[in-house]
C-alpha cells in the first residue's frame, strides 16, 4: 500500500486491536485438553500420535472425491460400479474405502441431488475432508430440506422447473456423494483436467461444475 501506516510512534492514542480468539477456553475445549493430557500421561497415546492423527484429518480434502468423479466421467463401467456400490469403487482407484457405506447419487439433465444432515453434520469426511461451516449451520440444515430451490438459488444455482430436486438427508449410517454431470465442452479432457473442475460444493450438490469460471 502506498499510504503505509508507518507512524505508530508519532501519536499517543491506542489503535483498536482485534481481540484474540484463543484466550478463553470453552467447557468442551477444556475437557478435550484434560482427556488428551491424561491419555499422554498414562502412556496410552503419545502427543505425536495425536498430532499425526489431526494432521491426517486435515490432509483429507475434496481432491479425493474429485478423483472419483473424474474417473466416473471417463469410464462408464467404473461409473456403473460406483453407483451400484460406492466403497469398493473407492478402493479400486487406491482410495480408503472409508468407515461408512457410501451412496453415490447421480445428477442428470432431469434430476439434481443435494446432501444435508438435518440432525447434525454427517459427511463423507474420509473422501471430502472436513465439512464447511455452513453445512453444519442450523440455517442450511433446516432450510435446504424444506425450500431446497431457494437455498440453491442463494448459492447461485438456479434450477429449471423441469429438473427434479432430490434432497438426501444423511440421518443414519449412509454417507453421500453427489456425482455431478460432466459439463459440456470438456470432450477429450484428461482425468486430471476434469478433476480440477470438481469442487467440494459440486459434490454436496449446492453447485455444478463449469468448464471455466466466469
Amino acid at each position, binding site marked *: 500500500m502506498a499510504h503505509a501506516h508507518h507512524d505508530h510512534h508519532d501519536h499517543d492514542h491506542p489503535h483498536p486491536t482485534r481481540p484474540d480468539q484463543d484466550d478463553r477456553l470453552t467447557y468442551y475445549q477444556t475437557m478435550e485438553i484434560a482427556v488428551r493430557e491424561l491419555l499422554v500421561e498414562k502412556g496410552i497415546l503419545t502427543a505425536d500420535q495425536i498430532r499425526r492423527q489431526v494432521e491426517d484429518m486435515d490432509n483429507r480434502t475434496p481432491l479425493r472425491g474429485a478423483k472419483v468423479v473424474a474417473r466416473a466421467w471417463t469410464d462408464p463401467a467404473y461409473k456403473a460400479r460406483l453407483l451400484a456400490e460406492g466403497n469398493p469403487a473407492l478402493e479400486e482407484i487406491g482410495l480408503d474405502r472409508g468407515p461408512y457405506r457410501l451412496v453415490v447419487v447421480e445428477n442428470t439433465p432431469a434430476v439434481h441431488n443435494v446432501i444435508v444432515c438435518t440432525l447434525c453434520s454427517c459427511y463423507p469426511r474420509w473422501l471430502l475432508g472436513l465439512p464447511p461451516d455452513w453445512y453444519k449451520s442450523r440455517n442450511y440444515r433446516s432450510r435446504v430440506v424444506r*425450500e*431446497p*430451490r431457494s437455498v440453491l438459488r442463494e448459492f447461485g444455482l438456479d434450477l429449471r422447473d*423441469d429438473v427434479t*430436486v*432430490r434432497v438426501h*438427508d444423511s*440421518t443414519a449410517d*449412509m454417507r453421500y456423494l453427489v456425482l455431478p454431470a460432466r459439463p459440456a465442452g470438456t470432450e477429450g479432457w484428461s482425468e486430471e483436467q476434469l478433476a480440477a473442475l470438481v469442487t467440494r460444493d459440486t459434490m454436496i450438490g449446492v453447485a455444478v461444475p463449469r468448464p471455466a469460471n466466469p
Partner: protein
Amino acid sequence: MSTAAISPRYCPGERVKVRAAYPPGHVRTPFYIRGHSGVVERLCGNYPNPEELAYARPGLPAQPLYRVRFLQRDVWPDYAGQPADSVDVEIYQHWLEPA
C-alpha cells in the same frame, strides 16, 4: 460384533409410513418426517440400533435400515417447488409401518 439381525419386512417400491412417535433419547428419525408416508428406495443393510448405541448398549439385534423417498409436497403442505421434488431419509425398520 454379532451378526444377529432382524429380517427385513419391506421391499424397494413398497409404501411405508413413519411412526408418529416422540420418545425421548437419541433418535435418528427426524422430527419433520414422523407420521409421513413414502416409498422404500432401497434396503441399506442391517445396523445396530443407534438409540441403544447412544447409551453404550450393543443395539442388537441389528435393525434393517431403509432409504425412504418422500414427496416434498406431502411433507410440507406449502412446498413451493415442483411436484416431483423429493427428500430421501434413512429410517430404521422399527420406525416404519405399512402405509
